[in-house]
Structures are given as structure tokens and as C-alpha cells.
């Protein structure tokens, strides 16, 4: 009881200040920020996201209209005309407003949604990109054969390996083949399209058709373990020409070899889990690091890609990202860590 009173007192006090007037503005700005952010369905950066957004606004304003009508009827029935109402009128209202209207509205919405779905799931253009959700990062392979979906299947082998960042060509319907070696994950780039699960033992597909260049966020949308919330990635939308150049660049071997950093990398066994094409490191457990220096983030979208962050991550993996499936290397001294991190950071 007392705390309620105290809360009200505080609220009353706050409402007197200029601060109170600022709150709605701040809230609006925060909302506007979300609306435009790189992880927002409202970013309008893909055909599917745009139509989901259109549906959202229709349903929002439709909901507002219904809400106003219902409240209006409630007010009418209790204030201007509180006396008993005609029973026949009441029954008609139940029949039309409570049965016919919702049924027809829901049928229209369902039909509208069903008509939208097949084209979005239609055939794609060009080569596909295989994306494997793995606890707690994303394995990416460009240039795999499209259309290899189904149950009791694995992702097509081969392709040009990368991780945690997906480059997409603008205006092209690109097929993403989704799989997983461990548990169910879900692949979601809110700014571009809806989400589809990555399920062990089967290959699903989603077609992304970006309509804006830029960098967008992707997330894992199905709880998959400790670091699920830190299992993100970036999507970089570029022109089709830039896309071809980017895939060719990803296909090339590491640009810098023979450094002390590489030596330490190999000597400390990092190559058992990581590949750096063009060196002896051929591991397949963790992300391909051949061009790790050119990615925007490390550790699956959670840290900016700087040599300091790479060193910090390798020194204390579980501290930076709880539950991560890479051992920490606290035994490496600063000098060694810097050498490794500088080398990895230089792998453009």
C-alpha cells in the first residue's frame, strides 16, 4: 500500500517537470530509431519484409478502428442511452458484429496471407548460399547448387567458405539453404524477410530478395543453448557486380602468410578447428578464418572486428561469450596474442 502511494507521489512530481513533456518525444524517437534500425522489419530492405510491414500497418489501423468502434458503442450504451435497449437490435449486433464481421475479416486476412506466400517461396535465381546454424555461430558457403532441399539430407558440400557474414546481391532472389549439425536454430534477417528454421537432418530454404544496399543484422530466432542470444550475423547487400567480386575474393587463399602470428596460430593448435586457406590450418570445427579480417564483426556478430577484440576473445572466450564452443587461451601472453590478432586482422 505504502509503495503504491510513494510511486504515485513520484509520478505526480515528475509530471510537473519539463522532463514529463520530453518523455513522449523520447519514446517516439526511440521508436523511430527501432523503426529504421538495421534489425527492424520496418527497414523495408527486402520484398518479403516490406509486405509483412504492409500487413502490419493494415492490421494495426484496422485494430485501432475496431477498438474505437467497440469503445464508442460501449460509451453510447452507458452514457447517452443507459436505459434498456431493444433486444432485437442487440441480437443483430451480436450476429453481425460478433459473428459475421470477425469471420469475414479473418477469412480475408487468411486469404491475403496465403496468396502472398507462394511467390515469396518461388524459385530463386543464380547459385545458392548454404548456411549452417551451429552452436553458436553461422557457417556460410557461397556458390552451392540450389534446390537441394528435403528431409534426411545435409547441406550440399563444397562452396566457398566463410562465416557470420553473408554478402547478398541487390535485387536478386538468392536462395539460402539452411541446415544444422547440432540443434534447431532459426535464420532471421528481419529487415529483409521472415524466418525459417535450420533443422538437423533436413535442408530448408528461404529466398532473400534485398531491395536496399547496406548492412543489416541477422539473428538466431530459436533458443539453442547458452549463447543463443549472441548468435548473430551481418548481411551485407551490394550490387550484383560487387557481389561477384566479393565471392571471388572469398574464394582466394589468405592474403598474408609467413608471419609470426601465423606461426603462433599453428603452434597453439588453432588450426585443429579453424581453416586459413593457403596455410596448414585446415580445421573444420570452427569458423573459416581465411578472410576474417574483412568481416565487420567477430564471435558471431557480437564484437566489432578490431585486433584488440580478437585478442580479448581468444584470451577469455567464455567471458566474452558464455557457453562458447572454443577454449580460452589465458596462457598466451599479451605479445603472442597481439601477434596472432594482428595477423588475423590483416587477413582481408
Amino acid at each position, binding site marked *: 500500500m505504502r509503495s503504491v502511494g510513494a510511486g504515485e507521489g513520484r509520478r505526480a512530481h515528475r509530471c510537473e517537470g519539463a522532463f514529463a513533456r520530453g518523455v513522449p518525444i523520447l519514446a517516439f524517437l526511440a521508436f523511430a530509431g527501432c523503426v529504421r534500425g538495421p534489425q527492424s522489419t520496418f527497414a523495408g530492405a527486402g520484398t518479403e519484409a516490406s509486405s509483412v510491414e504492409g500487413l502490419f500497418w493494415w492490421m494495426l489501423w484496422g485494430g485501432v478502428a475496431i477498438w474505437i468502434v467497440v469503445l464508442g458503442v460501449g460509451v453510447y450504451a452507458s452514457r447517452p442511452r443507459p436505459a434498456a435497449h431493444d433486444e432485437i437490435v442487440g441480437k443483430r449486433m451480436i450476429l453481425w458484429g460478433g459473428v459475421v464481421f470477425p*469471420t469475414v475479416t479473418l*477469412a480475408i486476412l487468411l486469404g491475403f496471407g496465403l496468396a502472398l*506466400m*507462394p511467390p515469396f517461396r518461388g524459385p530463386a535465381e543464380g547459385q545458392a548460399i548454404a548456411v549452417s546454424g551451429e552452436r553458436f555461430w553461422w557457417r556460410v558457403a557461397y556458390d552451392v547448387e540450389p534446390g537441394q*532441399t*528435403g*528431409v534426411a539430407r545435409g547441406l550440399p558440400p563444397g562452396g566457398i567458405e566463410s562465416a557470420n557474414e553473408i554478402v547478398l546481391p541487390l535485387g536478386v532472389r538468392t536462395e539460402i539453404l539452411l541446415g544444422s549439425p547440432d540443434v534447431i536454430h532459426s535464420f532471421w534477417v528481419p529487415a529483409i524477410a521472415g524466418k525459417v528454421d535450420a533443422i538437423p537432418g533436413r535442408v530448408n*530454404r528461404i529466398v532473400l530478395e534485398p531491395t536496399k544496399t547496406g548492412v543489416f543484422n541477422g539473428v538466431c530466432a530459436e533458443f539453442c543453448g547458452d549463447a543463443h542470444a549472441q548468435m548473430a550475423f551481418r548481411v551485407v547487400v551490394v550490387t550484383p557486380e560487387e557481389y561477384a567480386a566479393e565471392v571471388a575474393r572469398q574464394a582466394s587463399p589468405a592474403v598474408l602468410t609467413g608471419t609470426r602470428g601465423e606461426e603462433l596460430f599453428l603452434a597453439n593448435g588453432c588450426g585443429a578447428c579453424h581453416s586459413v586457406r593457403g596455410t596448414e590450418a585446415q580445421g573444420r570445427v570452427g569458423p573459416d578464418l581465411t578472410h576474417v579480417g574483412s568481416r565487420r564483426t567477430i564471435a558471431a556478430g557480437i564484437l566489432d572486428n578490431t585486433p584488440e577484440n580478437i585478442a580479448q576473445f581468444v584470451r577469455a572466450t567464455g567471458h566474452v561469450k558464455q557457453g562458447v564452443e572454443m577454449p580460452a587461451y589465458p596462457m598466451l601472453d599479451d605479445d603472442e596474442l597481439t601477434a596472432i590478432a594482428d595477423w588475423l586482422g590483416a587477413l582481408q
Partner: protein
Amino acid sequence: MHLLPSGKTRDNLWTLITPPTVWAWHFLLSYITAAYACAPNDAIFEAIPGPRLLVAVLTVVALAIIAWCGVRAWREWQSEYVAPPFNEASPAHRERFLEFSTLLLAGLSFVGVVFVAMPALFVVDCR
């Protein structure tokens, strides 16, 4: 089904839940039909007219049974009309209550079956 001397149905819980039960069976059979036609889901752009036709037939049958239940309940309720709520502890009120509830459930199940069938109308393949 038990008949009363008047030739009307003696309503019970089974006549009451027939429409939603038909809805449930329609859902199950439609689902199995689509799942069977689309497993293992590799030729996703191949049209599946057969299974869609089967869903259409299932839908017509389900709607017919539900409509029949609804019409029967409506007729019997109207012929010895009592307005809701059916509060008396009498056989007549019991009957009217069950008939009226059956009618409402039949309406709901009818809409449910239509909504369950709609994807088969709009989606022509396994994509």
C-alpha cells in the same frame, strides 16, 4: 442415436461434440494428405493436384456432416422454442440447451473446416 417418441433426437454429449470432432478429423486427414504428398519434400515446385482434390472432397464431406448437424439442431430447437438461458432442471430445457450449443459448435466447426482447407486452395505445390 436415440429417438424420442416425437421422432426427434435425444441429444447427449455425443451429438454435441460431433461437429468439432468432424472438424478435428478433417484437420488430421488434410494434414496427413499434404504431409504424405510432400515427403520427402525434394520436388517442391511439382504441382500436387491429386492431394488437393482429396482435401477438397474431405472438405465437402466434413462441411456436409457439420451442416446437417447444425440444421437438425436448429430445427429441433425452433420447433419447441425456448429462449436461452435454459435454466430449468427439466428434460425439455436440457434438450434445448444441447440443441442450441450444438448449433453454435456447428457454426464454429464449419468456419474452422473452411479455414483449414484454404491453404490447399491457394498453394498448388509443396514449396
